[in-house]
């Protein structure tokens, strides 16, 4: 169950349209290391997670990623909302416009559509948490790459906020991995997969 809160996690108030940079930033909506993939990854992985601290982290970070997706969409929307046909054409936004007008649609900067193959839900806590830590770092790099291209402080500020959250999430997933390992055989973490071999009735 989820409830909507009618505010952004961090404010987005962009007064100058910029369709060129919008085409780059949209990758954090529907790209390989974007917020949609992040949210779906954690919210998918949590059902078979046997340790409640880690189930909590997957639920709460997966939820926060939805709020980040909303911030990215707000940024892209505000960067494109007032465009004239001439500006669309000049900026190269015309190809996106042909398919989606000015609506938001999850795609990568390259134009590749969002796909569930951007993430894995493997059913092994060590494997999944390594993927999650890597995902946070990949998103952080993407934000670093975006920040090199952005000059407008109204765009920079929310992007910097999002970048910082990747680092906090990485930290929390690292702690989650430690919690998982504390439950396992310290001589061989791979002796069993607790998501499969420790189900009640299967011990």
């Amino acid at each position: 169950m989820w409830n909507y809160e009618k505010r952004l996690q961090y404010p987005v108030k962009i007064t100058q349209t910029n369709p060129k940079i919008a085409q780059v930033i949209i990758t954090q909506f529907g790209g390989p290391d974007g917020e949609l993939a992040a949210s779906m990854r954690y919210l998918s992985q949590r059902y078979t997670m046997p340790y409640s601290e880690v189930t909590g982290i997957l639920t709460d970070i997966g939820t926060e990623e939805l709020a980040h997706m909303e911030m990215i969409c707000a940024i892209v929307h505000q960067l494109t909302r007032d465009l004239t046909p001439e500006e669309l054409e000049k900026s190269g936004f015309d190809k996106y416009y042909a398919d989606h007008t000015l609506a938001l649609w999850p795609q990568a900067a390259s134009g590749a559509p969002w796909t569930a193959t951007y993430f894995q839900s493997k059913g092994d806590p060590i494997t999944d948490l390594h993927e999650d830590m890597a995902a946070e770092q990949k998103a952080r790099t993407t934000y670093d790459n975006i920040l090199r291209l952005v000059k407008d402080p109204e765009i920079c500020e929310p992007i910097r906020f999002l970048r910082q959250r990747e680092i906090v999430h990485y930290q929390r997933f690292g702690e989650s991995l430690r919690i998982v390992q504390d439950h396992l055989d310290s001589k061989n973490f791979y002796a069993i997969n607790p998501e499969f071999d420790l189900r009640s009735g299967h011990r």
Partner: protein
Amino acid sequence: MTENKPNRRELLEWINVVSFAVDDVKLFLDTHPCDAEALEYFDEFKKQRVEALKEYARYYGPLTLDTASTSAERWGWINEPWPWQEGGC
């Protein structure tokens, strides 16, 4: 009656601040569930957040379902701009 109407922008900024404190410490508590200092921090900011959301709803419309009033004549949830719109939160 002399009511002290809060400044909308300042109140919203405050909601963002206390909500962020709650969001951040919530993740910390997931992996440190017995940390006394973090538990106290959570309780304090959660209280402030609930108060601020109630106050905001009273003057400027609800941001959450729990602060949406049923006593008004019109459903207030759709009155104010959405967060990505001009004048939104």
